[in-house]
């Protein structure tokens, strides 16, 4: 066997070790609770839910198309939702269309009171008392925020609160790209 060959084979375990360390190091900083949505790229599921304020008014999946928008899943029992609420207000003021999906809340009144006191960043408020719509969306907690394009397809799902950092990150970047696409 020639010399360089020998050297390469001798270094092979070291190389394998470095790859393994890199892999494990990445695992240290990844969040296993952040799952990518199975619905990315698919049209929003069909549903029919009442309005949060007006039980007589009903909405279907058709309200989630026409322009790029966010669908924010929230509830009053969710502390993180309270944390992100101010930022959602700010996004709404900046002209980002947000639809709210109230998810298995304690009561309609409580949710309405929340919006009255903290402000209502939502263009529409869907009231999903039993979580049946959220199940169609594969929601497993609150808050979750879906990015939906003008054709009513789900493009991205963010789990956890929306804040400045997240909006500078993938969620915001994807939204801005879609919004820019629409203007052209």
């Amino acid at each position: 066997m020639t010399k360089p060959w020998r050297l390469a084979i001798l270094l092979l375990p070291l190389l394998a070790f470095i790859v393994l360390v890199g892999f494990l190091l990445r695992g240290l900083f990844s969040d296993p609770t952040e799952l990518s949505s199975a619905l990315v790229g698919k049209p929003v599921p069909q549903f029919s839910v009442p309005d949060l304020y007006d039980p007589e008014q009903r909405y279907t999946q058709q309200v989630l198309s026409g322009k790029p928008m966010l669908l924010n899943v929230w509830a009053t029992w969710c502390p993180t939702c309270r944390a992100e609420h101010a930022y959602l207000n700010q996004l709404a003021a900046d002209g980002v269309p947000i639809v709210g999906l109230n998810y298995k809340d304690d009561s309609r009144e409580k949710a309405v009171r929340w919006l009255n006191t903290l402000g209502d960043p939502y263009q529409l408020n869907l009231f999903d008392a039993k979580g049946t719509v959220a199940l169609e969306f594969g929601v497993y907690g609150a808050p979750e925020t879906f990015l939906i394009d003008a054709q009513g397809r789900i493009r991205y799902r963010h789990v956890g609160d929306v804040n400045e950092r997240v909006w500078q990150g993938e969620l915001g970047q994807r939204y801005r790209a879609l919004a820019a696409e629409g203007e052209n």
Partner: protein
Amino acid sequence: MRSFCTTLFLALSLLVALSPAAPAAYAEDIEVYSFDEPAKEAIFQELITELRCPKCQNQSIADSDADLARDLRDRTYLMVKSGASKQEVIDYMVARYGDFVHYQPPMTVATSILWWGPIAVLAGGALVILVRVRTQRRGEVELTDSERARLAELRKAQQKDTDQ
């Protein structure tokens, strides 16, 4: 008290069953999962231990007491009760929650390393051994002149020893 609860539950479920097209919205109120056919119950039991709770991650929806696990159990119950097959329920859940929701993930490009990885490592080891054995067998050692002379001497000495 207990029999009272059971009666109440039976009465309520009768009410639900009799009301025209009982909506799925009643799902949350299911307390006892009862089946008219043992085969369906078996499917249900299999499913709730095979489906994983997306919220609690390391528990099946049978083990977990999380709200979401309960919702998924209820949905599974309603689907099985109305005649869905095991695969139909799994497909339904996977379509919404991804492969993650099933404890037996399918083989895809991303997961194939788990199946083929150990075999590849074994094959690699076997290859190394094979190559080493072969080179050892084939490798004839070249002797220098002085070594050859020394070998001849040793052989001669040995010859003498055996002659005596």
